[in-house]
């Protein structure tokens, strides 16, 4: 019945800390405008403090852990989703100001903003006429 989720706590230092869960990449939307890239990911069941984002060189690493769910201890009459954790890595394109990357959670979705570095933003060049015109 409960073959999907292993509920045995790990041995050693991690004993009792976390359940072994399967990890999958969350579905994402990726948008871009003149100022930033926007990643929107579906991470249902993940609280704000369950999310870890890391930037290393040109790689963005996302880990999202679900809250321990009390309901799973009762017998399931129907099971259409597994209580998975989420993890994914994304390559950050050139021209992103990695120090200014920010993220927020909203109703089980994660919104990551990757602002473009000033030099990479589209700029309009003002054309001046010389005084001799």
């Amino acid at each position, binding site marked *: 019945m409960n073959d999907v989720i292993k509920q045995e706590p790990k041995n050693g230092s991690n004993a009792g800390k976390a359940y072994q869960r399967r990890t999958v990449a969350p579905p994402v939307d990726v948008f871009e405008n003149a100022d930033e890239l*926007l990643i929107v990911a579906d991470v*249902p*069941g993940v609280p704000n403090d369950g999310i870890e984002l890391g930037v290393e060189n040109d790689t963005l690493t996302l880990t999202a852990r679900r809250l321990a*769910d009390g309901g799973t201890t009762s017998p399931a009459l129907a099971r259409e989703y597994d209580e998975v954790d989420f993890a994914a890595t994304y390559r950050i394109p050139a021209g992103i100001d990695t120090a200014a990357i920010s993220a927020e959670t909203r109703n*089980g979705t994660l919104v990551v903003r990757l602002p473009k570095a000033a030099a990479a933003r589209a700029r309009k060049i003002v054309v001046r006429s010389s005084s001799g015109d």
Partner: protein
Amino acid sequence: MLTGWRDFEHTLETIDRLQRRMDRAFAGSLAAADPAWTAERRRSRVAWPPTNVFETKEAFVVKAEVPGLAEGDVSVSVEDDALVIRGERKTEVPAGYRVHLRERAPIAFSRKLPLPARVDVGAVTATLKNGLLTVTLPKTREALPRAIAVKAV
């Protein structure tokens, strides 16, 4: 009663599996040629939101994954011994943005889950947290297990 529920879910699962196989067969032809067709297929997809149902001694607990839904986007009701979850998930492209990748489909949904026992309709509660909908349906007194005293006569 419980068998009935499982059969129902099994049927949905079979339909889902068949649909996926069809999708694979048509991938790259129909879907690629006609984005509207793909959108229509997404709208009519079976079983959204994905739902787990648990039974405790006193209640049924229904959990559904509804990432992106706020309070006003989903309605929950009990109709004819079934739990009905309705709503719409909008995943709009923010104004002024270009799209690079779309994996989160917008979807309007209505699901009817038959309940295997009577529930106390007045005591049903529903909460929404971190994109997870939890509906707790307490069983009626008649549906609770009861020990019958055996008397010697």
